[in-house]
């Protein structure tokens, strides 16, 4: 209630963050697993004394650099920009509690850039062991930055004892920290194989191509069961109420859970198919197809994870609409409009009722509901409600466990209902 809201309408409900986060996560995990892939494949080349494999690694490094360092890193900055626009209050909480974790992550990020650039530019020019060392340093920096950021991401879903103690370490090593770290590490390894398909299917020499594609399939398949096991572990450490929101009470979650369950075997068999001998003209498009399926796969998991946090941005601490659960009772007394800093209509009158309703909608609903957009569109969701029914619904919004309580007064609830019914539904 402290900050102005960006009136997004169509792109509301988290569309922006979903778009940017999913592509970022997909590339940034590759930046970690792919780093290990580079050194281990380079070692393989040396072991087998194969100039062709080394040449492949070199080409793959260029692809890796252009994808992870440019797109991966810049979309990471993008997530940061986006959350501070959509949820400034919660971003501020994260920054003020975890500034040093972020600062440390920045050092790792710089280390990644420096070592990757040196690795790339000195390929074939540096003595073998030193070059491998630089590759290892890259991988370690990359994995450490996952370590640092993982603490903060998990904190948002399971802040654990931090809610009482306010202690950094309680928040950082929170209940889902370790399962998520394993989950993300295995995912990163699998992605190394998945992206490896893209470059290895382009190798000209038939025999080398077959053997490298099979090698990439191994990267995809070997961690697979560990990956599923850690995903399962992850789900099991989540508090009962989070699991309930995900699996029992959220209508919108069903499709993401279904997608995840359906795509798991598809990815696995896709990996197996890549391992058998097929002509390059089949494998090349298949590689891209698998990469796309992988994006859907991981995107659905991220959606489930994000969805489990509803109705909070920081579980138990801040609702998605930036209200603290502790303040709800108090705001109900004074009213949202007079508590919030960034509203024009502090008092509701007959003239400004709809205007005030719009401000109430922007403050309390827009963070999760778009108006006419692809995510959680409020228009169809409220289509069967009459104005009185909406008033009633708004009063007991938190009967739906994925929504926060409406923190406004009786009169504010009515103004909001009127706005939704008359303006958004167009019942003049």
């Amino acid at each position, binding site marked *: 209630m402290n900050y102005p809201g*960006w*009136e997004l309408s169509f792109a509301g409900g988290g569309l922006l963050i979903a778009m940017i986060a999913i592509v970022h996560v997909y590339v940034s995990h590759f930046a970690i697993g792919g780093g290990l892939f580079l050194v281990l494949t380079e070692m393989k080349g040396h072991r087998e004394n194969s100039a062709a494999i080394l040449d492949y690694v070199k080409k793959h490094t260029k692809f890796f650099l252009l994808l992870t360092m440019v797109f991966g890193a810049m*979309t990471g*900055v993008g997530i940061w920009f986006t959350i501070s*626009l959509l949820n400034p209050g919660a971003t501020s909480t994260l*920054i003020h509690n975890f500034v040093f974790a972020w*600062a*440390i992550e920045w050092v790792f990020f710089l280390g990644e850039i420096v070592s990757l650039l040196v690795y790339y530019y000195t390929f074939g020019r540096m003595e073998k062991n030193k070059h491998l060392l*630089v590759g290892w340093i890259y991988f370690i920096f990359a994995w450490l930055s996952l370590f640092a950021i993982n603490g903060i991401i998990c904190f948002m879903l399971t802040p654990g004892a931090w809610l009482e103690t306010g202690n950094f370490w309680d928040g950082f090593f929170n209940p889902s920290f370790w399962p998520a770290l394993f989950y993300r590490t295995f995912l990163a390894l699998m992605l190394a194989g998945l992206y490896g398909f893209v470059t290895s299917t382009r190798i000209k020499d038939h025999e080398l191509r077959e053997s490298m594609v099979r090698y990439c399939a191994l990267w995809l398949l070997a961690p697979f069961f560990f990956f599923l096991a850690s995903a399962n572990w992850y789900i099991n450490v989540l508090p009962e109420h989070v699991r309930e929101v995900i699996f029992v009470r959220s209508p919108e979650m069903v499709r993401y859970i279904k997608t995840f369950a359906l795509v798991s075997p598809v990815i696995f068999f896709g990996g197996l198919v890549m391992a058998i001998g097929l002509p390059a003209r089949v494998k090349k498009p298949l590689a891209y197809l698998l990469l796309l399926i992988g994006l859907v796969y991981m995107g659905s998991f991220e959606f489930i994870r994000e969805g489990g946090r509803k109705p909070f941005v920081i579980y138990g601490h801040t609702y998605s609409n930036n209200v603290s659960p502790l303040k709800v009772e108090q705001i109900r007394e004074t009213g949202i409009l007079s508590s919030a800093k960034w509203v024009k209509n502090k008092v509701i009158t007959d003239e400004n009722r709809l205007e005030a309703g719009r401000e109430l909608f922007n403050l309390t609903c827009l963070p999760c509901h778009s108006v006419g957009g692809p995510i959680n569109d409020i228009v169809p969701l409220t289509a069967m409600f009459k104005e009185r029914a909406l008033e009633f619904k708004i009063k007991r919004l938190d009967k739906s466990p994925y929504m926060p309580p409406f923190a406004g007064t009786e009169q504010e609830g009515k103004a909001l209902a009127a706005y939704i019914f008359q303006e958004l539904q167009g019942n003049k």
Partner: protein
Amino acid sequence: MNPADLVPVADMIPVPWGWFQFFLILTFMLHLLLMNVMVGGGIIALFNHLRNPAQPSPLVRDLSRKFPTTIAIAVNFGVAPLLFLQVLYGHFMYVSSVLMAVYWLSVVGMLIVAYYSAYFYNMRFDALAEDAPKVLGLSVVLLMMIGFVFSNNMTLMLNPQKWTAYFDHAGGTMLNLCDPTLFPRYLHFMTASLAIGGLAIALLNLYRKKKGDPDADRLIKQGMSWFSFATAGQIVLGIIFLTVLPSEVRTLFLGGSVWHTSLLIFGISGAVLLLFFGFKKMVLSTTVLTGLIVLVMVLIRDLVRRAYLAPYFSTSDLQVASVTQYLLLLLFVVVLLLGFGVMFYVLKLGHEAFCQEGEVRP
């Protein structure tokens, strides 16, 4: 509506504000210098490439190789000050960012395109032939636009009295174009890029000269004249900037406060001395003094910000949380030192690998 009522309540900080102030100034200064090298290097490359698109000079080819790397490092060094700025001034900056959300978010898209164009320019340098300057131009223009968006945000956050416009434009499409300080301020940064970009070229070639590069002398001269002419322009721009500052802020620097005024006098006389060093092509003295003067300018910029915000906020208002994080502060410093040690070692390995081949690191 009283603008002061719009300023959000600040969160508590984990250690006293002075620490964040120190890291903010330190990392911002590094970011600024790197950003200057990036933009300045880009503009100088573009200028030289356009002068002779058919046969770009070796300097152009050289700069094209380094351009993507400077973007990588400059952006990375931008992350840290942005972090520390949010710790101290987040409740101002988040607001201004939301007010100009569309432009603010477009920074990310522009950055990605600028960065890829820089790589494209480098990797396809020969194949692109006469189209190459267009690709470079795209990258440079985008980077300069990003700078402009930043200038807007950094001035909008200082002006709560302009924030009320939100109530008529909640879509995040505001800019701060009517602010008389905006353009002088922005140009001050961009001109600094030409100076620092030129100086970086001179420094690099000073190093090559020691290695016996015959072309180095000419390039040192070229770099230093970019530096000197840009610095001359900088002095004029700086004075214009000073005159358009709001009078409460300006008077502090014109005798109102001893500390503000002496810093400004020190800065301006240093800049004049720099002109002398620059035109005399004294590369090393110029570099050392530039480092000092840039620090002074960064401090002056900080004082300007404080003066603007004085009616609303001072960093000493920030409360320290009951659970402090000194241990983490220490951990950060340790990681920073160790990390830089490792990076230094990696760079040394890279450097040796290139020296054996008798080339200079890209």
